[in-house]
């Protein structure tokens, strides 16, 4: 039986930019009416260029920002943080992993404390249990006990992203928002982190909203794909539909721009260059 974890109807978000000495106040429509839903254990990928509103959408889903209009249901429950505020109950359901693992960890906090903090803030777990659970989570994401008392600067980018994922999972969330989690990582490390995400999804039946601009990663990880362009969802469907038959011209541009690394296209390019020379 499938169960809808996240459902979003006609979400809009405007930002008001106050005028300066020479400019008038204006309104930026960052997200212009987007609707979608994600079922439990599935991955929705949101694709688009910088400035298309995908990170704004991530902030709304993660309950950091309130939408200007539209409604949001998480786990069957209607959520309106502008009206009712954010409860720790809600915070336990949704967590986020940010793009830059160098910026998202406090350099003065030891890894053990990084992992314990979500529990400390949102639950009344005793310190000893927090420690045990942090230790267990550290192993789950492929790090070991000796890393518990280290600081973020002592880790590589891939390891830091593992820590950020571990922190997000400390509260056993249902929904995990991943805002470009692998775009700052090398290819080989990217593969490790993608594998980890797939394993964790299987184990905990996690639901992912995966934000990315890398179509090859999206094709690998997503069940459903939504393409955003200037704040609007221009394409939304299952992965195979979108990849097999992109309808909107922007999606087609995106596909055409993605570098192709298969032998046939390299052969074609080399032959073309020879002919030109």
């Amino acid at each position: 039986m499938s169960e809808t974890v996240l459902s979003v109807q006609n979400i809009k978000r405007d930002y008001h930019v106050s005028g300066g000495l020479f400019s008038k106040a204006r309104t930026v429509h960052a997200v212009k009416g987007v609707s979608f839903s994600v079922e439990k254990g599935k991955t929705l990928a949101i694709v688009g260029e910088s400035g298309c509103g995908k990170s704004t959408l991530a902030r709304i889903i993660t309950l950091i920002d309130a939408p200007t209009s539209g409604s949001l249901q998480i786990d069957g429950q209607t959520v309106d943080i502008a009206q009712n505020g954010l409860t720790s109950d809600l915070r336990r359901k949704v967590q986020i992993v940010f793009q830059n693992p160098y910026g998202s960890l406090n350099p003065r906090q030891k890894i053990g404390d990084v992992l314990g903090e979500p529990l400390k803030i949102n639950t009344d777990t005793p310190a000893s249990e927090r420690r045990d659970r942090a230790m267990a989570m550290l192993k789950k994401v492929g790090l070991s006990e000796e890393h518990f008392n280290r600081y973020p600067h002592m880790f590589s980018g891939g390891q830091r992203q593992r820590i950020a994922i571990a922190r997000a999972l400390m509260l056993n969330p249902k929904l995990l928002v991943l805002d470009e989690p692998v775009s700052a990582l090398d290819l080989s490390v990217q593969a490790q982190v993608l594998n980890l995400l797939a394993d964790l999804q299987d184990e905990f039946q996690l639901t992912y909203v995966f934000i990315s601009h890398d179509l090859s990663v999206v094709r690998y990880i997503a069940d459903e794909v939504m393409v955003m362009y200037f704040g609007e969802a221009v394409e939304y469907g299952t992965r195979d539909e979108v990849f097999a038959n992109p309808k909107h011209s922007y999606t087609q541009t995106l596909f055409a721009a993605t570098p192709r690394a298969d032998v046939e296209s390299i052969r074609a390019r080399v032959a073309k260059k020879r002919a030109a020379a």
Partner: protein
Amino acid sequence: MPLLAIKNLSVSFLTSTGPFMAVNGIDITVDAREVLAIVGESGSGKSVSMLAVMGLLPDSATVKADSMVFDGIDLLRLEPKERRRIIGRDVAMIFQEPMASLNPCFTVGFQIEEVLRVHMNMDRSQRRKRAIELLTAVGIPDPADRLKSYPHQMSGGQCQRVMIAIAIACNPKLLIADEPTTALDVTIQKQILDLLVGLQQEHGMGMIMITHNMGVVAETADRVVVQYKGRKMEEADVLSLFENPQSNYTKALLAALPENATGDRLPTVGDYQMEVEDSTAVKTPPLEAPL
């Protein structure tokens, strides 16, 4: 004769735990009119070896090489003053972060004209004319107006175009591009790569493309050098590298591409036996955080 021939280049940095070998005995050659890609993950020494060519490494670095011949001149035997005449004019470099590599305090026009003032014997009006020409060549609309813009008034892709304009200002023989598109969107990446390859062919430059993106390699390179932990793992023309990779590291890199995924899991570099581990019995001090 190759345009650039480096033999046995080693770069080591002084660290608190002793010398660290960032580049360990690498040979690189580039011919005129050729695009060479250097691929590797972060820490593989791909940028450092090119910074050594440019002479841009900090004092804590020791550069050793049997020879580093550019266009018939051994760069290592040059006086710094003579070397500066070549660097920036005949060899130019583009960096990864376009926003960070332009000076925010000066207009784009000033920064393009600065190169021309230093390296070319041009008067003010010639410089201005050439700057407009360059901005047109890199595809910036309204070039005459844009000369007055500051970097923060332009997008990332446009800043990278300005960087390219600065790099090709003196018609260099060799252009080194260090991850020129990593910070950019795919659609902009495509435009910048097309622009670079177009300029390279038009001007008959040699080009070195440093990248960790196998897609970029596949789209631009004639020949590829794969680097790992400061050593050269493999060198091949682009087609044979993708068709029939020789070293285990290259195989691992290609297998880690999500589009080549066959099963549920992506193979990672750790799944492959790495021949480099045996050969680096040489002192590479342990890193603080082993992967």
